[in-house]
Every structure is written in C-alpha cells, then in structure tokens.
C-alpha cells in the first residue's frame, strides 16, 4: 500500500470512516503517522468544545464566587474545590460508573400532559460523557483564573465607570468583563494548552474506545504494544502535540492582542508559559 492509499484508508479511521481493521503487522511509518494523526481529531474535538462551553460556565462560576451572598458563593467555591482538588482520572472513572448505572432503557419523564423518554445510553459513550467531565473540569480551573482576575480589576476603572453613569449589566459588559479577560488571558492560555493535553486521558479512563475509534495516544499505545518499540509512535504523538500547542499559543496570542489593543506596548500583558495547571 502506498502512503497515499494509507492516508485514504486510515486518515479518518478515528471517526469510523475508511478501513475497518487496524494494521496488524509490518507497520510502516506512514501508517503510524496517519492513524495517530487521525486520532488527533478527537483530541481537538474534546479540547475545543470543552474550552468553548467551559468559558461561559467559568464566567458564571467566577462571578458567583465573587458574590456577597453565601448561598451563591458557597456552591461556586465547592464546585471549584471539587474539580480542582481531585484527579481528572478519578473524575472520569466516577462519571463513567455513574452513567453506566443509569437505566439502559432511558428515564421516563412525566410532564403532566406528555411523557418523554430521556435516552441515557449515549452518556456512556466517550464523545458525550468525557466531554461533560472535561467541560466541568475546565470550567472549574478557568473559573478560579477568572475569579483571580476579577479581584484585580483596577479600582480606577470601576470609578471611571461610575463617573460615566455605567451600572449593572452595561458596566459589567463594557468595563469589568473585558478587563477581567485581559488580565486572565495569559493564565487562560496555559489552561487551554493543558486542557488539550488532558484530553489524552479519555480513552485510558474507563470510557471504552468503541470499534477502536480512539484518540492520538490510544493509537500510539496500540502501536507501541504491537511493535514493542516505543521510540516511534510516542515521538509522533509528541510532535503532533507540539504543533497543536504552538497553534493554541498563536490563536490565543491574536485574541490577547485584541484584548490589549487600547494599551501602550509596555503595559500589555504577555503570555508566559507556566506549567501549573495540569490536572
């Protein structure tokens, strides 16, 4: 099989398109690069969607943690402690076991006038179950980052907002939120990088890779187990992830530039790599 044919057969294998059987013997470099690259689709899927939905929940959590009323503040604090204080690996297992315990036939919901059956079996699949865990997890980590940024919004900005007669929603939308994002952005970039790294845990933590549709690391460990040679597949994964990391740094850098566009060059906050947020 030429390399082009291999790419046609396995390029979208992780989505179930193309050849059913994985290569079993005489592994070529092209097969390994293609299949691991096809697995990367899942890493990007989990990372991008969790990051997108998590962003909104995180804003809410940060605001709730900043609230005066304990009935709003305490749940947010507990949410952050629960997801930041325990290993993601355990969270995955716990979520999977509890999703499995839900009745197979679905839950009957009686709304008075009509009965609906909420199907639950899709929750045990990685694409939904693991995404929910990653979403909650990144919301907690990002919530803490946003909360820290919210506490450091300059007093002068708020006073200026008062002087202009901004209050309530418009003050939040125009002053507090953009400043919070600007202050949080370097830390949030790190969070995004490590969220993408954390997506490699999904298929090692209870969620089964249905019909061998797995992520990049799943295929890499498949090759390492079959060939007894870790020196080829793992560096391929590493290469892919370095590229992904660079891409994230670039995209977040563009947003950072936009958030900082009103400031003089020297006052802009720069991204610095801080390996502090792996879970």
């Amino acid at each position: 099989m030429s390399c082009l044919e291999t790419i046609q057969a396995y390029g979208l294998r992780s989505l179930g398109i193309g050849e059913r059987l994985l290569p079993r013997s005489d592994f070529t470099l092209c097969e390994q690069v293609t299949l691991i690259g096809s697995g990367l689709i899942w890493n990007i899927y989990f990372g991008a969607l969790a990051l997108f939905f998590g962003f909104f929940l995180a804003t809410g959590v940060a605001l709730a943690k900043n609230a005066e009323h304990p009935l709003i503040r305490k749940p947010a604090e507990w949410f952050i402690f629960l997801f930041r204080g325990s290993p993601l690996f355990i969270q995955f297992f716990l979520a999977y076991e509890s999703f499995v315990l839900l009745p197979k036939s679905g839950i009957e919901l009686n709304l008075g006038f009509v009965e609906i059956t909420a199907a639950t079996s899709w929750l045990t699949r990685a694409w939904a179950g693991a995404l929910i865990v990653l979403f909650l997890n990144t919301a907690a980590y990002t919530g803490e980052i946003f909360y820290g940024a919210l506490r450091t919004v300059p007093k002068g900005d708020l006073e200026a907002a008062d002087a202009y007669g901004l209050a309530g929603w418009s003050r939040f939308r125009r002053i507090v939120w953009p400043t919070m994002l600007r202050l949080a952005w370097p830390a949030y970039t790190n969070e995004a990088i490590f969220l993408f790294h954390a997506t490699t845990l999904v298929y090692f933590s209870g969620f089964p890779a249905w019909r061998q549709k797995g992520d990049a690391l799943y295929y890499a460990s498949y090759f390492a187990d079959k060939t007894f040679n870790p020196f080829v597949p793992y560096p391929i994964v590493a290469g892919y992830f370095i590229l992904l990391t660079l891409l994230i740094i670039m995209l977040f850098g563009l947003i950072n530039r936009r958030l900082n566009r009103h400031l003089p060059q020297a006052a802009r906050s720069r991204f610095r790599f801080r390996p502090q947020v792996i879970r």
Partner: protein
Amino acid sequence: MFSFCSDPSTIDGLSWLACYLTNGKHMAFWGSFGVVMVLLAITAPAALMFGFGGAMAARSRVLPIRWLGKGYSAMVRGIPDIAFFLFVPFALDQGFEWLRHKVKCPDWDEPIRQGNDFVVCAAAKMPLSSSPQWVHETYGFFLAVLAFAVVFGAFAANVLFGAMRAVPHGQMETGVAYGMTDRQVFWRILVPQMWIYALPGLSNLWMILIKATPLLFLLGVEDIVYWARELGGAKTSIFAYPHPDWRLYYFLGLLVFYLSLTKVSETVLARLTRKLSHGQATMAGEQQRKAAA
C-alpha cells in the same frame, strides 16, 4: 479478621460489612493506599533532585550542558505528561535490558530488534524470568517512580531555574565582595534564599503530583484505582461476599481520599510559606518583621 466471619453467608447488616471490609482482598486495597503514599514520599525528593540538577545545568557556563538543562526543562512544555508516563518506563526497561545484554552476552550475534520483537539473551532479562513475583512487582514500581521523577523533575527544573534568578543580585554581589568563590556564593547564599521564591511553584507541583498518582494504574501497578475497579465490580453468589456493581461507591471513596489529601496539603504548605518567609526581603517577610517589632 473477626471470629464471626467464618461463614459470611449467615451474617448480615453491620457485621457483614465489617467482615466484607476486612477480607483479604480489602486488606490489599487498604495496603495500596500505602503504595500511593510511598510513591509520593519517594518521588517528591527524587523529582526535586532531578529538578535541581536540571536547573543547575541550565545555568552552566558550558554550552552543551546548558542546552541539556534547557532541553530537559522544555520537554514537558508541549507534550502531554501521560505520553511520558507511557513512554518513559517502556524506554527505560528496554534501555536497561540492552545495556545488560551488551555486558553479559558479548558474543550474541543475532539482532536485538527482530521485526516486531525485542529480543535479548535470557541472562540480560530485567528482572530474571526465574525471580519471584515480588521482584517483578517491585521492579515495575521502581520504573514507575523513575518515570514520575523524570517528568516532575522537568517541571521542578522550570520552577527552580526561575527561583534561582529571582534571588536579588545584590545578595550574590555581597558574597563576592566578602571574597567567596562562585561555588561558595551558590551554595551559601543563593541556595538557602531561593526556596521562598520556589515555594509557590513547588507547592503547585506537589498538588499536581498528588493528582497524578492514579496514573500508576496505567503503568500496571496494582494501586487504588486497580483495586477499586476489581473490588467494586458485581460479584455473583459464587463469591463469599456477593454484591451488585459498587464501583461508583469505591470511586466516591477515592474522590474523598484525594480531596482530603489536597486539603491537608494546602494547610501544611500555608504554614511552610509563613515559616520560610521569615527574615526574607519580601513583602511577607517585612510584614512578619513589623508584627514582631
């Protein structure tokens, strides 16, 4: 364990639970919490040593050594740590066997990599195939510790390198002015002072290390995750203690274990920060000085 446990099928309620939680397999489960603690106790200093070496190498005047140090601390940046946990033990194991093969069987003429197999002579196997089960388990645990130490050493090298640069330069210049050599300045002035700058990063690392311990399961060590899955699974009536699928409760237990470990660490680290700030030229140190005066 207890005398009334001899026939589990006749008892129920609390005494059943007491017998269930003290049977042989559960003793292994409780023991595996010890394994996690031992891992933490060995890995933390080992990783700190790796990190210290890495940071020292990154500051070296010799270019290749500096590259080595910088490369080591940069390696964790773009690559998922779990990829390292899968790769490092595998690679180390083959590295050891290859070295032993070269030493012990010099007149072996077949290639080591035959297609998809990694073949070394029987005398070079690590551990020897004739050695007892516990040697194999200890060797697996040792490889896991080494993998943790290498990965977290790279993180620690990042932190310590930053901390060494954060010590005020005037302190070192004072040392030189008193006639100390470079080596003396490093060990007597820089190293004692850098810890307070390294502490925030190191306490973060400690939290990450705690949360990385369930990855032991991936390395094939029989740790708490292994036992939780093993014991929690549904047991039919052939077993002495039949029960439905209880994995959820076992994992809830693990969750509580990790949350309390985090809480305790937070308290201890806060105390340590206060202690190390004593007499330092930082804001916290200054506050302590004023409070005492």
